[in-house]
Structures are given as C-alpha cells and as structure tokens.
C-alpha cells in the first residue's frame, strides 16, 4: 500500500490524480468526522453482534476477548451501535471529554 492520506505530499500526486492501486479507499480516515465516540461496559455484553450488523461504516470487529468494538480509524461516531445495543453496553461520549 502507498502512504496514508495525511502523509501524501504534492509530489506524490501522480499524472491526473489517477489511482493505480485497488482498494485504497480503505485509507480514507472517516474517523476524523467524529464528534462523539463509543465507550464500552463489556460486563453487560452478551456478544450478540447486533452492533456490528447495524454499523453503517462496517467498522466493528471482535477483539481478542470476543467483545465487539469499533475501529476508531473509521468510526464516524454516529451512535447507531449505542442505540441498537440490547444490553446497553455502549455509551456515546463527546470527543473532547
């Protein structure tokens, strides 16, 4: 993969801005849009995976313990996971807090 988007200099912009490699949309850091972020109380989590199904960004994955957690590089902080979670694991907090 080429450089991350915030490392690209004007000299890296190729002819006509043509992108030759496939799949580089994954470098797009949509997490920078976020004003709120999800916080977790995994003691309440039943690992149902509903948050992962509802996440419009597709950025929720299971961590080493099997709990579902958002990848903050992509999480836009929409809060849909927190609203859909049956057992109230997820609380959205303001980014600056």
């Amino acid at each position, binding site marked *: 993969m080429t450089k991350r*988007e*915030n490392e*690209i*200099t*004007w*000299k*890296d*912009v190729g*002819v*006509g*801005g*043509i*992108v*030759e490699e*496939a799949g580089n949309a994954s470098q*797009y*850091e949509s997490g*920078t849009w976020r004003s709120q972020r999800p916080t977790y109380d995994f003691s309440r989590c039943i690992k149902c995976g509903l948050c992962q199904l509802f996440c419009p960004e597709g950025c929720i994955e299971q961590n080493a313990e099997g709990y579902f957690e958002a990848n903050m590089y992509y999480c836009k902080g929409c809060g849909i996971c927190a609203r859909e979670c049956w057992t109230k694991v997820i609380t959205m907090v303001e980014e600056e807090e």
Partner: protein
Amino acid sequence: MAERVGIEVSLAVAEAAMMANTDVVAAYPITPQTHIVEHLAELVADGALDAAYIPVESEHSAMSACLGASAAGARTFTATAGQGLELMHEVLYVASNMQLPVVMAVANRALSSPLSVWGDHSDVMSVRDTGWIQIFVENGQESLDNVLCAFRIAEDPRVLLPIMVHLDGFYLSHVIEPIVYPEQSEVDKFIPPFKYALRLDTDNPVSMGTFAPPVVYSETKKAQELHLRSTKEVILECWREFGKQFGRNYCPVESYHAEDASILMLTMGSFSETAMTAVDKLRGEGMDVGLVRLRLWRPFPFEELREAVKNADVLIVLDRAISYGGPGGPVCSEIRSALYNEVKKPKVVGFVGGLGGRDITVAGFEDIIKKGLDISQNGSEEEFEIYGVRE
C-alpha cells in the same frame, strides 16, 4: 511540397485536426465556430478522416465525451465559442486536473446578454483559470500551425494537458486567407502517435477522476499549478522544433519594433495585425512606438513579458473583455501585477475595446496610442477607458 491555398480559416483549422489524424471529434455547432465542426463532420462522412464523430446535444456533453475519448487513449479534438464555452465550463476543470490532452479551437465570441454572435474575448476570460494551456493566434496560418503544435504539446508525456487555441470569431474564423499547407508526411513526423500510458483499459484498471478529501485536495492543486507552469519549456521546445521543420517561428511574447521603443502597445489575437499597421504609421511620423503581442496566455510568460517591456516608459494595454466592477481589462490587470514588483517598469495604461464585434481600425489604434500616452503623462479620472463608446 507544401502547398499554398486560399481557404476559409475555419476549414483550415478542421483540416489541421485531420492532418493530425484525430481519432475522436465530439462537438456541437455554435457561431462563429460552426464551420470548423461542420467541415470535420464532412471529412469523417466522406472517409477522408478515419475518426469517430460524436454529434452531441450540448457543449457540456461535447466536452464530457471528449474527456471519455481522451481517457480511453484517443486523440481528441473539439471546437466551440462564446456561450458554448460557457456551457462546457465545469467540465473544463475536470479535463485539466485529470490531465486529458484534448485540443480545442475556440472562435472567440462575446457573451450574452445582450445577445451577440460577434467577437471579443469575454468567453476566454471566463475560462482563464480552468487550468488549460491557452494560445492566441493572429491569422489563418497561425491557426493551422498552432492546432498542429497543440496536439504535439498536449500529448507530450511531460505535459498531458488540454489546450485551447484561441482564434478571433469572424475576424479569423470566417476569413479566406492564403495558408501554406504542410505535407502530410511532415505533419506525421512532427506529431508522433499518441501513447497515453494510463488510459482506460479493462486489463489494467485504474481509477480516474477520484475524490479528494480536505487532507489531500491542496496537494493535488499545488501539483496541478506547478505542472502547468512547468509546461512552458515544452511549449517553447515545440515551437522551436516547428520553426526548424516548417520555417515559421512562434514565441510566447512577440514584439514588433518593440526592442527600444519608449511607448509600447500590447494586444492579443487578430487585432495585433491592425495595431502593427498603426505602429508603422506612427513611427513614420516620428513617434517612438512599438507593439508587444501576448501569444501564450496560460501558462503566463512572466519572464518573456518583463523582458519585452523593461525598457519602455509607457505600456498601453488593449483588452477585449471587461472585469465588471474590477480593475478593468483582465489582461491589463495581469500585466500590472506581473510588473508591480519590478524596479524598472513602464507606466501601464488600460483600454477596453473591440467588444462584441466592434472594429478598431488603424486610425483607432493610432488614437488609442496617442490617448494612452496622454493619460500616462497627465493622468485620468478613470481606471481604464472603454474605447470608442458614444458619449
């Protein structure tokens, strides 16, 4: 042998595109450019030019089709004027940033309203900042020559940018002139086949015209700006090669008795030839006057312009467009800003004239030069004067 023929300039422009072996023409007819694309349609229909002619429903579509054709690796030509250029407007920026080397002849026309089909440079000035290379021509021969040069420059791997060749509507487009036609074999030697390395190709897919978030948009714009500036060297090289092969030479800033003249007139396009005659007459009367003509409009030839005017006391600039409520003529404004930081520079006086097909005669240019000299000495209440308006 090259052949000298009497032909309407529009037809010669179309035949230059044919000699360059254009693959695709997508165009919509509009006065005063219509004869160019009409003739290309004929040439394709008659089998004289093996190209795809795409008749579209608007200029927006014409330029969009040109982008697609060029992206697929085709040598692409179109022509337009006035309102047609305006309707293409948003697509022009796409062509330049995507580095698609479309060649377009523009038969310069005034913009509505009031409706005018006649010539001036208001259409050009509205597309000044679209990132295209822009060349002005003064007569039929220059039109043909520079359409040929445009293909070579645009498709040069060091350039890959679209080019507009500006020829004044009616003054050039509809005039029959003697034009030297080069041999086809010589044209073939001058314009190598187009090999665009990154064309649309299902076997080697790439993404074109992608999206740039704020974190990279500025980087793409700096790259585009520095790239357009860097193409000047290739343009000069192409004109030098053209001169060697065909014996006609072109420079970004042309001068006429300008080397040591204390008074200079500056023009762009076909009016320059009339201005030359006025300069001859005034020099005959003992006035120390010369003419500078701007041929390369983008990238702007800063060094050449400064060099051409550095010894003059007065520089009188004629614009054929108005920047309403602004500094007057767009060309004059750019000349002023190009000279502002120079230690030794002429006093710049701006005139706007030749709007919507209004003629400026030899006597008119004499009058402008004399008035300009007077304003440079005695000042004026106006930022610029619209020449020849009935009070």
